[in-house]
């Protein structure tokens, strides 16, 4: 069976253009059933990918994906769509490289062009210690077969001619970690691709359905929640749904949802802001990241510069953004590219990031039977979406944590075995 339903192609575009015929819906608005085998909380990239791989790889199709708003309205639609696999730790590299591979074949697998633009990814070094960390990452990357190397300022200039590589700037560019397979993806298309395919395989996507509680029994906490308990379903604004497995695929609300199952998380929620300029003729061919300057930038095929930074220092659930973000951003971007001061910022927005102490996610099984988490993604959620879905599906289907996510289970916080991405991650886009 095809995995994606109605096949899109140039031929279909011509056919529909000529006949003016309606295109089929990409997904339905189904009526909710009273019970499912798996209920996934959060209709973003992670939730939809998990549903898709459960259906496609494990034959589980009696699945509901619940979202309190619309599909992809959270972090999936607010990120800056950068993908890469040049992480610092071997476990990080292995994980994100699988994700990159899935992104690479996604357009064909899902029959929806997610416009993966493999344009190269530059992480600038402005200090010798940053350069050392770049070397460290490059060497670890190379050992795992990742195309990643340190290049000098002249080579940087070749990749991104608009960067100022003169030596007398406040933050001189001493070199960069260059990762040719990195790039940007049309983030919404990824969400829609998974949603369309999941829908085709029978998954129910229930939009505007908010989870109010997770129903448990047998746990040591109140209402049978917490350690030793078992999940029985969820309570929503549209009624109760019973399910033996509930997956928390939320970002921004992960702590609140997890508390419903009595599973506390090592998370604080911070906004991550982004902004986009008015379009200009394309001049920036690569993704450019500067950790010291807390900024990353790429130019879309539409000509807009898309900017991001590090998370806001003050934790909050508010997403209305700050002025100082745009001020600092502009100052830092102009340090790198002084010639673009006349470009105008057109829109700013922010999303919520669940930050963990080691900048790595919390995934897999928990102390509550049937309650799974795929949370704490910080600023990396988009890059990891496909592999997170694939490994969470395996974990749910088999009941044991998939190998790739073993370093990321919640136990590491009780065992003191944190993951070492933090050093490289202050601004890790």
């Amino acid at each position: 069976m095809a995995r994606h339903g109605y096949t899109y192609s140039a031929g279909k575009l011509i056919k529909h253009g000529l006949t003016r015929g309606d295109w089929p819906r990409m997904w339905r608005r189904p009526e909710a059933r009273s019970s499912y085998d798996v209920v996934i909380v959060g209709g973003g990239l992670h939730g939809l990918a998990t549903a898709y791989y459960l259906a496609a790889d494990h034959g589980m199709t009696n699945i509901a994906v619940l979202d309190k708003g619309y599909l992809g309205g959270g972090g999936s639609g607010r990120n800056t769509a950068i993908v890469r696999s040049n992480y610092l730790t071997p476990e990080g590299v292995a994980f994100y490289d699988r994700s990159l591979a899935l992104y690479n074949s996604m357009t064909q697998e899902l029959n929806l062009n997610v416009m993966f633009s493999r344009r190269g990814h530059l992480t600038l070094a402005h200090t010798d210690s940053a350069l050392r960390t770049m070397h460290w990452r490059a060497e670890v990357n190379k050992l795992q077969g990742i195309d990643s190397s340190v290049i000098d300022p002249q080579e940087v200039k070749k990749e991104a001619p608009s960067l100022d590589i003169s030596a007398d700037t406040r933050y001189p560019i001493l070199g960069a970690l260059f990762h040719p397979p990195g790039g940007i993806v049309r983030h919404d298309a990824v969400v829609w691709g998974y949603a369309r395919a999941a829908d085709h395989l029978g998954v129910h996507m229930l939009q505007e359905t908010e989870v109010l509680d997770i129903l448990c029994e047998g746990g040591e906490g109140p209402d049978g929640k917490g350690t030793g308990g078992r999940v029985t379903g969820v309570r929503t604004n549209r009624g109760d749904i019973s399910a033996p497995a509930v997956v928390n695929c939320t970002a921004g609300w992960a702590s609140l949802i997890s508390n419903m199952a009595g599973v506390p998380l090592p998370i604080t929620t911070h906004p991550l802001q982004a902004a986009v300029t008015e379009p200009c003729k394309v001049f920036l061919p690569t993704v450019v990241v500067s950790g010291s300057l807390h900024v990353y930038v790429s130019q879309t095929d539409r000509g807009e510069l898309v900017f991001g930074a590090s998370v806001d220092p003050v934790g909050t659930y508010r997403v209305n953004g700050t002025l100082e973000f745009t001020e600092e951003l502009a100052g830092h971007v102009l340090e790198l590219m002084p010639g673009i001061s006349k470009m105008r910022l057109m829109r700013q927005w922010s999303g919520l990031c669940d930050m963990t102490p080691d900048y790595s996610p919390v995934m897999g099984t928990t102390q509550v039977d049937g309650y799974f988490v795929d949370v704490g993604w910080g600023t990396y959620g988009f890059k990891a979406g496909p592999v997170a879905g694939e490994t969470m599906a395996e974990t749910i289907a088999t009941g044991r944590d998939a190998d790739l996510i073993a370093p990321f289970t919640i136990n590491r916080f009780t065992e003191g075995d944190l993951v070492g991405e933090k050093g490289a991650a202050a601004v890790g886009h």
Partner: protein
Amino acid sequence: MTHNRLPVRPGEVIDRETSLAFTWNGRPHTGLRGDTIASALAADGVEVFARSMKYKRRRGIMTADHWDPNLSVQVGDEPNVRAGSRRLVAGMEVSAQNVWPSLKFDIGAANQLVGRFLSPGFYYKTFMRPKWLWHHLYQTILRRFAPGGRIHWETSTHGAYDKRYAHPDVLVAGGGPAGMGAAIAAAEAGASVMLVEHEPELGGHLRWGDAEDLTALADLLAAVQSHPGIEVLVDSTVTGRYDHNWIAVMQRSHEVAPERLIKARAGSLVVAPGLIERPYVFAGNDTPGVMLSGAVRRLINLWAVKPGSRAVVLSANPEGDAAIADLEAAGVEIVAALDARVGEDIVEVEGRGRVRRAVLGDGRTVAADLVVLGTGWTAPTSLLNMAGDRPVYDPTAARYFPNQLPDNVLATGGITGNGSTVELVAHGSATGTLAANRALRNRHERRSSTARARSPEGPMPESLQDTRVPLARTPHPECYRSSSHGMVDFSEDVSSKDLFQASGEGFDSIELMKRYTTATMGPSQGKLETVNAAAVLAEARSMDMVDIGTTVWRPPFAPISLGALAGRIFEPIRRSALQDWHEAHGASPLLAGQWVRPDHYGDPVGEARNVRENVGIIDVTPLGKLDLRGPDVAKLLELVYVNRWQKLEIGRVRYGTMVAEDGVVSDDGVTGRLGEDHYLMTTTSSGAGAVWEMLEDYLQTYRPEWNVHVTAVTGGLTSINVAGPRCRDLLLRLVEDVDLSPEAFPYFHVRRGRVAGVSGCIIWRIGFTGELSYELHVPSGHALHVWESLIANGEDLGIRPFGVESQRILRLEKGHYIVGQDTDGLTKAPSAGLGGLVKLDKHDTLGLPELRASYARTDLPVLVAIQTDDPEIVPMEADQIVDGDSNRILGRITSSRMSPTLGRSVCLGQVDPSLAAAGSKVTILLVNGHRVSGTVQEHHAHVDPEGVRQNA
């Protein structure tokens, strides 16, 4: 060529005496002072200003203001200039952007022929096979269609910009009748007022109104200008309202900067932006010559430009009716005046470069070159959204209205309802009074509540009830779409048909539809198209507008240049008191955190060798220095260092390592006891600030009963390390009142004394280089004198200054590790090779449970000294240590240099515990892919492990 310029109009803003020459697409044109680029070109007969983004359709003036989606032009090196609002300046080189090869003939217009195949999201459905073509061809083609002007990124400076802070009691966004009324009333109530108007002059719609409007405007202007409490900012936009009424104002055409960002903390914000006229959706609604009623009224009344000769007008409101009168006065023939209130309609407009015919709702076709639409209004609720409001649609008035606002944000004017000028001013006035009263009450409360309260000025203002009589919501027909399909988003070339398709495909919420079709995502950011898009979606889903909602309007309200947001780029660098000397003596600069330091003076190896052989001096001022005083300092040290401190005698120095509460090594340094209750702590350069704040944290929140005072003295004391076998000889010439003999002043001791005549210097016998060395902490005002005295007195001893690079060589020879280089974000104490330093039997120290746990583990990596078996090979720092020929990582080189003392390469590295024993063989993978062997050494120190030299 000024054939469209009308005789003098009563409210015109042009100066007919001053003509300004400029070029448009390379051709010379002339305008008048007061013209916008668009009005000058329109007066000169220009009709087509741009090509649309996707189909390259010809586009002309539609709204004749800042929001006009068809009037983005390139002016010199500035892209995306709004010709509808940018004032004409003599000499401007203006050109159409986004056209190829020219505005007249654009190859991309072929897209119009294949438009039926380019339905929304078409690119998601094709270009998928073959895969490589996507990367090499399709993407390149799509990029060609990127709209917008050209940025001259080759420019090497970012230009002159500036910022300003302001603290008005009341900030009024919008200088129309209501906003002016609010400003006057607020000022009368005693508030300081900032009145911000987007256009170059106050007045709002009164400016292009009739004689009565102009009279009312003159009165209001006089009142505003005569009130000293009102600061007026025109040609300025309130671009954002952030939490706690932090308001961004973009001031354009300021004398010192092309754009100036004003950041205002306003007591109250009065939102009075008026209304934005809304286009109408029908076939051909983007043809040049289709204009909104406000556009023709502005062209005629402000710039005396005749917008056409034969007009069809579709009006649904008094402003549309007024346009008819203005057109007639301008000599435009009205070929059809259609009243939308009685169901009259327009179905289609034909014409390519200009309107030629219009098909009306009753089936008639009339010849015309101008179609004027007065079909409705959009409430620009942007600032209200940013204040947390979710405006609600009112079908009777056919627009959105404010819903719930916080106390410090008030709305007035057209955004809240309709009224005569008198009614608008009255509502504004009542709003201004209320806004002022709330702001003054808050200010009063704040001043009386702070610990160091200034006396509040006068009595607390009385609390005022909100007794404003709301403005009426005049019924208005819901004119969104005719019976035909037309453009909804002009910037993005998205039609109503596209939106129907998107809804049918499942993108049936406003946010999903926006993302799929890109409607509202272009430069006008939804100001013209959001409500029409919502209306089309409601129609497609057969829902009520009320249930559709709208997309959230995000800041900024109008685009802001990056230059203005950045302002003057202020990235200070810290320089020691000696940095000028270093630079004058050939120092190569090294940026290290906030500091600039000498990396070397041209010969790092020679400088290092000189330290081993003679004497060298290095400026180590960035070293963090904290002066600690009080009876409980030892308890503090015991808490924050892993080792013991209770028994440190006066005059003694001890090395200490800090770990954080999670057991990870965080900082290190030496601390000396200068007196009974007086210690001096040193930290790493990069950790100085964090350690200071950490000490304060534990002192203030964890052990407030301890009596310790912490003072940061990093910059106040200039630190000079004097190192080398001959350094004592040198210091004997300069140090008074301290016995420098090894017996009286041994290693790891501290003294205070006079150096080169400077009293109050602190002299430590410590060093990072492994040589006999003294570290001098000199009051910074005298530092240069001491430094120069050292140089002068050391000439015969072979003194040379040395920089950071030499120090790195020397410390590595000696095996001293650097926190953050030889350790990382997960390095626990055992991995730093701290050995017996850590005391696990203390009652309380930072991270104690984690320290204990870490010492119980056998799997943690270990810091070791490594030497390559081939002495010539210097691995790069961060080269990986691998398991033989496999790719399994067993560690990494953390520091490496060629040792001038040993004539061989020396390294430190973190290795798997299985490799930690002295003599273990390790395989190092070099950057070039070669694998070389190395041997783990017994001691961290490659040179002088016994410490003979430093103890000399």
